[in-house]
């Protein structure tokens, strides 16, 4: 990695860099030798490889089958309606129309994800959509995957058997130990944590030990104890965790005073959690922080992770589409939440509209202004831009303009913080850490990477 002084040299006086450093930069395409300012075909091909997701079209299709939920989480009022409320479920006609859109996408792999609300409340609809998709795919021949985000409370043995039959991946939210989880995710019986654990046990019995992944919503209350959170996940038998800050969208903004925090605080929390996780790995226990895995894949390999929320051009609309219960289509789940607060600029249109038209909508045109990170002010000169992405939905919603302002962008603050930390750790060169990082980046188990070999620094 470049230290600050080398960074300045690179920008202003590359000839003052040590020759071996200059060679490193030239080999990675960061510095061009005199007289060959153009990219070779191979560099172009490497660039295409990294951006290959572009050609495929939307691969992730999120179905909000119902907005109803029996939880009333403070940071999620926007995404829910009361359990008995009327008119918050997706109609069969809209579900079928959404499937038309899914199969209009040219993507060779299609993932259909069920969200809510609590999608398990309408498992009949989930069933219908899965079966219809499988029927359609008999002809379409894509690689078809399913996933579902659920509290697991309402998944009984029949539902779980269906999940196993169709390989529906389950993910759930566990915010931490019972006290924290129950305070943040109140359900009528005030036993959300216990019931999620019961659901987890049922699901693991049917789907196997790694059949469910979990992720916490890191609120201000959770910031104090990163190690406790990781330890709670370990105790529950998870071998990974996905650490994300609480989302700044929708109604959750009103409660920001209570649950929100500076991104610096999140980065501090993240670093401590990651340190702990790296120690576990060093002691021979494989445990992965998923977001670090995504960033490291971008940093240490020539490939993209496939993650739709960290791309340039942005994944919104191009990589992911959200079909809301009411038949509206959005370019991302965040865009849907923003729209629920009354900001309609991000709605692409009605689900009966063709995919081409949806992607040609004024909303997409608006988002496009901020979709290419390499062209955004600030990002265009940022050393991390090859590994980072653009989030025009966030910047559009919070800054009022999809281009956004890097100086006050929490998206940027988070990524700047995480990249700095990861690059610093790589530069430190501790062999045990590099081995863990390499395994995560390559999506392999740590035991398969006995020796990571040379790691670029």
């Amino acid at each position: 990695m470049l230290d600050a002084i080398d960074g300045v040299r690179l920008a202003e006086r590359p000839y003052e860099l040590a020759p071996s450093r200059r060679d490193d930069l030239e080999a990675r395409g960061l510095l061009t030798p005199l007289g060959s300012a153009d990219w070779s075909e191979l560099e172009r091909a490497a660039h295409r490889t990294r951006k290959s997701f572009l050609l495929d079209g939307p691969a992730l299709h999120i179905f909000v089958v119902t907005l109803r939920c029996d939880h009333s989480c403070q940071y999620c009022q926007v995404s829910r309606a009361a359990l008995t409320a009327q008119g918050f479920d997706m109609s069969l006609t809209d579900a079928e129309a959404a499937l038309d859109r899914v199969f209009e996408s040219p993507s060779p792999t299609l993932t259909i994800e069920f969200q809510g609300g609590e999608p398990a409340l309408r498992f009949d609809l989930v069933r219908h959509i899965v079966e219809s998709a499988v029927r359609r795919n008999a002809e379409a021949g894509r690689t078809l995957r399913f996933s579902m985000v659920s509290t697991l409370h309402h998944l009984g043995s029949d539902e779980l058997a269906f999940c196993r039959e169709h390989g529906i991946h389950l993910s759930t939210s566990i915010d931490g130990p019972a006290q924290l989880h129950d305070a943040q995710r109140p359900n009528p019986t005030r036993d959300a944590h216990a019931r999620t654990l019961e659901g987890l046990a049922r699901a693991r019995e049917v789907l196997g030990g790694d059949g469910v992944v979990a992720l916490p919503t890191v609120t201000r209350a959770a910031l104090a104890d990163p190690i406790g959170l990781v330890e709670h996940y370990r105790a529950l038998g998870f071998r990974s965790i996905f650490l994300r800050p609480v989302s700044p969208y929708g109604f959750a903004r009103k409660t920001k005073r209570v649950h929100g925090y500076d991104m610096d605080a999140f980065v501090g929390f993240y670093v401590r959690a990651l340190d702990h996780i790296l120690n576990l790995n060093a002691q021979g226990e494989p445990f992965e922080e998923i977001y670090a895995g995504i960033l490291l894949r971008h940093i240490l390999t020539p490939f993209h992770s496939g993650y739709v929320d960290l791309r340039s051009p942005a994944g919104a609309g191009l990589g992911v589409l959200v079909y809301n219960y009411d038949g509206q289509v959005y370019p991302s789940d965040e865009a849907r939440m923003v729209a629920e607060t009354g900001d309609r600029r991000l709605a692409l249109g009605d689900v009966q509209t063709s995919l081409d038209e949806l992607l040609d909508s004024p909303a997409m045109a608006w988002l496009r202004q901020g979709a290419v990170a390499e062209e955004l002010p600030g990002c265009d000169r940022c050393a991390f831009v090859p590994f980072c992405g653009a989030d025009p939905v966030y910047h559009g919603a919070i800054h009022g303009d999809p281009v956004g302002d890097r100086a006050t962008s929490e998206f940027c603050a988070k990524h700047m913080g995480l990249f700095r930390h990861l690059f610093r750790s790589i530069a430190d060169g501790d062999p045990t850490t590099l081995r863990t990082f390499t395994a995560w980046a390559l999506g392999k188990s740590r035991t398969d990477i006995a020796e990571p070999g040379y790691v670029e620094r």
Partner: protein
Amino acid sequence: MTGAVPLHTHARVSGVDRPEILKVLSPEEAVGSHLPPQDVLLFAEGIDGPSLTRPGDAPARVEDLRDRRVIRPGDVVRLRPGGSLVSVLYRRGSTSNTLFATERCNSLCLMCSQPPRDEDDRWRVDEMLRVISLVDREELQLGITGGEPTLLGEDLARVLDAISVYLPDTQVQILTNGRTFADAALAERLATIHRDRTVWAVPLYGDVARLHDEVVDVEGAFRETLDGLYQLGRLRARVEIRVVLHQLTIPRLAQLSAFIYRRLPFVNHVALMGLEPMGFAKTNRDRLWIDPADYQAELAAAVFHLAARGLPVSIYNLPLCVLDRRLWPFARQSISGWKNIYPPDCKDCVVRDHCAGFFASAGPTWRSRAVRPFQFEEFAA
């Protein structure tokens, strides 16, 4: 010293009035052969060693072979009129049979073991075509080397066409610097024949132009080779990258492995190769020689980088005793039989059967200080 049956010997040759390339067959095998008698030399073992006879109306004889081991049934040999030299152009059972395409080359590598000569040697094309028609159909592998074989252009296409007709199942390995493939049309012409059984073995000596160009002694070669590799990748040709290990390539070897992973992730194999003390390598010894014992860290960094990332990697031409033990699983017995030797110290070494040994041309000044035989006790758990 043991090993190394040469590819040439002298003998009493009679009955040939022009250069002849013939297939040696035992009388039993000749009976069932599809070859006409004038293409065959019948092999007979006598008290004075083997003798060879061409049956039919144009009898020829080869007797009194100076080295009896050189010619065996199944081989393809060249006889010259009025000369006593008999050369084996194809040896049955050898894993290193090679067709020599041309002595011409467009590079001038510092360690070239076969220094190029700028002569019109297009007669070799007919020789290759002839040999191909006489190679055992069941032959598993055949190499093509030079010089720079792709300089033959359309003539190389003819050779590959012949291989795909006569030897449809044979794996072919072609050593090329890849530069001519910067020409997309030529790449397409050559790399699509016999495609699934051909490996293009392309040397790469650095991750930056300065370094690669210095080693091959041509400015702009790096860029051309990369463009050529791009064409091969685009055509889904099979590609091996070869790196010769010496003083100039070692300092950036690990970085080069990362460059291969990032820029050439489509390659099928990477071979990291000890230096062969032949040709220019001898002249340039001072610029090139580094004791392998002194570059094990760099070698391990490169090997493990590639292996962890799923790129098959091998170490060629280095004896086990100079290698870091962790690298043994990557070491191959890569030196062609006819130039492969084991010095007397190796006699009692317990890993000899797995060891690459040495090039016959490697005198004492080319021997690592780390060379030493192993004993069983060292492997006791």
